């Protein structure tokens, strides 16, 4: 009743169309890193509404790429997914305002409108932590057109995306990153079904090694993978690919990765995220997952 990859082949469900945030995956495929680990991998592009969590949980894919907070929510709802690799060490999300407003802290935001990704934990976090006065919360459409035409409009963004577009269009975006706002989460997390990892999870371990190799390769030379992704996602031009690849570098590399290797995770950081989600009531305290259960391979 469900589509599933043929045995042996691993299907990885992405949560977006091929873009630099998946650079390591495509590089691992292109460089043969997957093959060297004995893995046959199929990368499946997604769209803005692709239900990655549900697909992986129900067996429609073997692995998926989701945000850290999505994983926590899924576990809180009784879905047994486990992170094996955290591509971004911190959330790429942020709040983008016009620099002309001269804000030093987000708390100073007053009046105008703020577009948040409806229902997403980050938005709920911002709303809960910053009781912004007289700011109208609206739903974001994912674009920057309203930002360009309205000086008093602020919006949620991906630091690698909207601010770049806004700047190109001649605007003056100023970004408060999620991290700087206190929202501490891994992102671009590769997850698998918990049951698939029981019994050693040798293939998953091999997967992590291949991912690390892929990302090392991509960080040093993104051109080959970019070209491949650009051939799939022809709506994004080569210059933008290069630009974004560079912009995401600080997200991929952190003190932790330098100490523990790319993709590394620590229980303490998962705990912080879980506590935050409980605090903003996205998950109940009784349903909160254990931090250690959220991931494997601290490497």
């Amino acid at each position, binding site marked *: *009743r469900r589509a599933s990859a043929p045995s042996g082949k691993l299907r990885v469900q992405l949560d977006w169309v091929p873009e630099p945030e998946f650079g390591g995956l495509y590089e691992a495929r292109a460089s043969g890193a997957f093959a060297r680990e004995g893995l046959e991998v199929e990368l499946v592009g997604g769209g803005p509404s692709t239900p990655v*969590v*549900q697909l992986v*949980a*129900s067996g429609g894919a073997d692995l998926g790429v989701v945000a850290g907070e*999505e994983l926590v*929510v*899924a576990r809180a*709802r*009784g*879905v047994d997914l486990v992170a094996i690799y955290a591509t971004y060490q911190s959330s790429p999300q942020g709040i983008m305002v016009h620099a002309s407003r001269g804000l030093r802290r987000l708390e100073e935001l007053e009046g105008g*409108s703020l*577009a*948040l*990704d*409806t*229902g*997403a*934990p980050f*938005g709920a976090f911002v*709303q809960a932590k910053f009781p912004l006065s007289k700011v*109208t*919360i*609206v*739903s974001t*459409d*994912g*674009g920057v*057109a*309203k930002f360009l*035409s309205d000086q008093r409009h602020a919006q949620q963004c991906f630091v690698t995306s909207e601010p770049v577009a806004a700047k190109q269009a001649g605007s003056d975006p100023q970004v408060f990153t999620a991290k700087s706002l206190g929202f501490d989460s891994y992102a671009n997390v590769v997850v698998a079904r918990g049951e698939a990892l029981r019994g050693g999870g040798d293939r998953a371990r091999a997967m992590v090694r291949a991912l690390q190799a892929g990302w090392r390769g991509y960080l040093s030379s993104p051109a080959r993978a970019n070209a491949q992704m650009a051939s799939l996602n022809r709506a994004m031009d080569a210059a933008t690919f290069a630009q974004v690849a560079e912009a995401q570098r600080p997200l991929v590399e952190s003190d932790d990765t330098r100490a523990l290797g790319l993709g590394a995770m620590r229980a303490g950081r998962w705990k912080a995220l879980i506590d935050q989600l409980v605090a903003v009531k*996205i998950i109940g305290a009784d349903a909160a997952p254990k931090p250690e259960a959220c991931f494997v391979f601290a490497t």
Partner: protein
Amino acid sequence: MSAKGSRLAGLLLPPAIGLLVLLAAFELVARLFFAREAYLLPPPSAIAKAAWQERALLASATLSTGRAAALGFVASGALGVLFAIVLASSRLLERALYPYAIALQTVPIVAIAPLLVVWLGVGPKSVVASAFIVSVFPVVTNTLAGIRAVDPALRDLFRLYGARRFAVLTKLELPHATPSVAVGLRVAAGLAVIGAIVGELVAGFAEHDPGLGIVVMTAYRQLRTDLLFAAVACSAALGIALFSIVSLGAWLWLRRWYSGAR
């Protein structure tokens, strides 16, 4: 039972039974095949529970979306019929414009969301506009077809007695097209609801007075599938309500003379 009472029962009982059967089937499927995957398809009992727990939220969301959908729907009815009248007034005009009216329907709302927001602002007006844009085309198409199908002999009759264009319209074409307009409105009912929901997602308020679109999206993002389906049930109920109003109106209006009236 009185004749009137039994007639009302005959009218309301079948849909009630239909609902029960559908729900039972749904519950069975959910329990049998999605027992461990309630995040995909929760059983109606779980949905009902979630709906009860979040009844305040769902009620206000349904009201908010319902208002926008109803307004968009009314606009579709009025302007759709008007546009069809304009097109019907000349074969040339119809050929020149009608095909492009369809563009309205194929444009993803997200593509014109910025325009909507710039013109109408974030909030209810844009949501209503979205409901209108999504639901107007069936009204145009059905009305136009209804007007075109007027018996040529009746047109002759009007011509003979020197009827003006306006009289032909109001005394011949529109009365004859009413059953068709009703069909168009039936289709538009559901579309207005989905149009409002989509509109909320791109141009709606997220915080105060969130509509069903916001609830759907929130529940979806937070994997609260039972609440998600509860919200979907509310949007379906809105569609069914608009649909029923149209059906009832059409029936009251047409039953005296139209054999196809229900």
